[in-house]
């Protein structure tokens, strides 16, 4: 198991959220949308030039900005 940020993950790769290194405000926002430590996430795509990242969490697809994506640390195989 290694730890990478959501940005470093490859497309179509799965990972388990290890921690969210952000302030409580953003942590709560992620939390309410279903991104919390232990949750499995699949990365769908990543736009070039520091663009947004699309992920699949549970049954929903979320798009998040590059900076936000860098704050989500996951454990991958």
């Amino acid at each position, binding site marked *: 198991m290694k730890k990478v940020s959501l940005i470093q993950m490859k497309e179509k790769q799965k990972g388990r959220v290890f921690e969210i290194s952000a302030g409580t405000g953003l942590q*709560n*926002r992620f*939390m*309410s*949308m*279903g991104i*919390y*430590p*232990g*949750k499995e996430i699949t990365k*769908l*795509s*990543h*736009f*070039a*030039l*520091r*663009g*947004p990242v*699309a992920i699949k*969490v*549970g*049954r*929903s*697809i*979320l*798009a*998040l*900005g*590059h*900076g*936000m994506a860098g704050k989500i640390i996951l454990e991958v195989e």
Partner: protein
Amino acid sequence: MIKKIFLIGNPNVGKSVVFSRLTGVQVISSNYPGTTVEVTSGYLNIGEEKIEVVDLPGTYSLEPASKAEEAAVFLLKEYPKDEIIVINTIDSTNLERNLYLTLQLLEEGFPVVACLNMCDDTQHRGISIDMENLEKLLGIPVIPTCAITGVGIKLLIERIKEAKPCVRNKFSHEQRWQDIGQIIEKVQRLTHRHHTFREALEDASVRPVSGMIMAIVVIFASFKIVRFLGELLINKVFDPLFFNFYQPILEKLSAALGSQGFLHHLLIGELINGKIDFRQSMGLLTTAPYIEFSMVLPYIISFYLVLSVLEDVGFLPRLAMLLDNLLHKLGLHGFAIIPMLLGFGCNVPGILATRILESKRERFIASTLISIGVPCVPLQAMIFGLLGQFGGFYVAGVYLVLFAVWLLIGVILNRTLKGYSPEFLLEIPPYRFPPLSILLQKLILRVKGFLIEAVPIVLLGVLLVNMLLYFRLFDMVNYIFAPVVNGLFGLPKESTIALTIGFFRKDVAVGMLMPLALNVKQLFIASVLLAISFPCVATFVVLLKELGLRYLIKATLIMIAAGLVVGTLLNLGIMF
């Protein structure tokens, strides 16, 4: 005694559709998170009682992240808990994520009824939910509904009164999710199915290359369809009605009035070559209805029809994701494209939709850009009508100039305004294919809204122009502004008044240019100026309400500066 019923839930679960079903009040609903930014209320009869129902903007939790969410949470907490009932609308296809807010509501002690919406969608997504068990585990009434078709609404109304607060300890976030995990395990069964074509399409649309290709095709097709439908309606429906049926009646009226005099001038206007000219006569019964019904209304219909399809299918959030990078350069993020697109219909709902953006800085930038660089349908329709005669090249040119101005002002604002812009975080909804009846309902709602707002002001605008012409008051105004309008912009000084009328209605303003026989270049400059300079009075009022006086003045100064610079540059720079 129950005083109010609140509809709350995650964004894009169909609260507004449930609301319409409960109260009969028609509201705009779409397939993207954040359609509802205003609080709407209506009434529901339960037995003898008439209770107010309030539709709140969607929120993921009781800790709000945008102005729209703030309004929702604030209102919810304003009333004593024993005087309200909360209907928590839940997307059944995404039960787990939705239950987070439900648990929060229960922990806060609200009396809650859960309405599991979009139940028809669960089956072919391979989900089955044990409603009875869920009801037991949550301790509140759980009612499956499909608000679009109306299934389950009757049962929901019958059981609303069963809502009661249930005792629940306050949990930490992690514990809450653990709890939800256990509930889901007990009530939800998933059957594995093959990836459907729709899901493959959904995945492709969030990838850079395939997504971009799909977006270009969709936008190009949308634009073509809007133009095609608009022209079809004008040429085959509205123009024939005006010329074949309405004109003969007016000719008789004109003759009866003696072809001149005050009343004739007021109702019919000037005769052009002895005949009524709908485009130039400027009478209350001639030009006013012609502009509204035969030049603008067809495009209102075609634009909103296409927009409704894009909204309901779920295309807009995907577009937002594709444009996130570009919009970051303007101090905004991807979601800001949705208010911009709404602004192409009418700037007012566009600016209202900026409430979904998180910071005031973003809302200021987005609102200013909408009022400067985004022409509304009435203005666009008139530009098509006037400039289009000379060729599509010029029409495209207007859009290109506006886009450049929009981009430039955005970049400048982003560089000069203090503060930063938050990042993009948006749920991308699944593609949905709404029934035609729902699309038409929404179209009718919007067309009605347009007619109610536009017709009186257009009549007033034409009346004003008509009177000013009759009493020859234009000369004075024209004289004062001649140095700017004629000197800088190269327009005849008579067009001053048209630019001024733009403050009331853009369509009437362009209409006023028609009798002036401008050449292509002048028409081009006037069209751009009408878009950039002052938005109409309705937009001003919304800007004031949304931004406050200080920011409104700032925005206005930017508009004036932009108008002066662009008008002069175009006059000096282009040679057609």
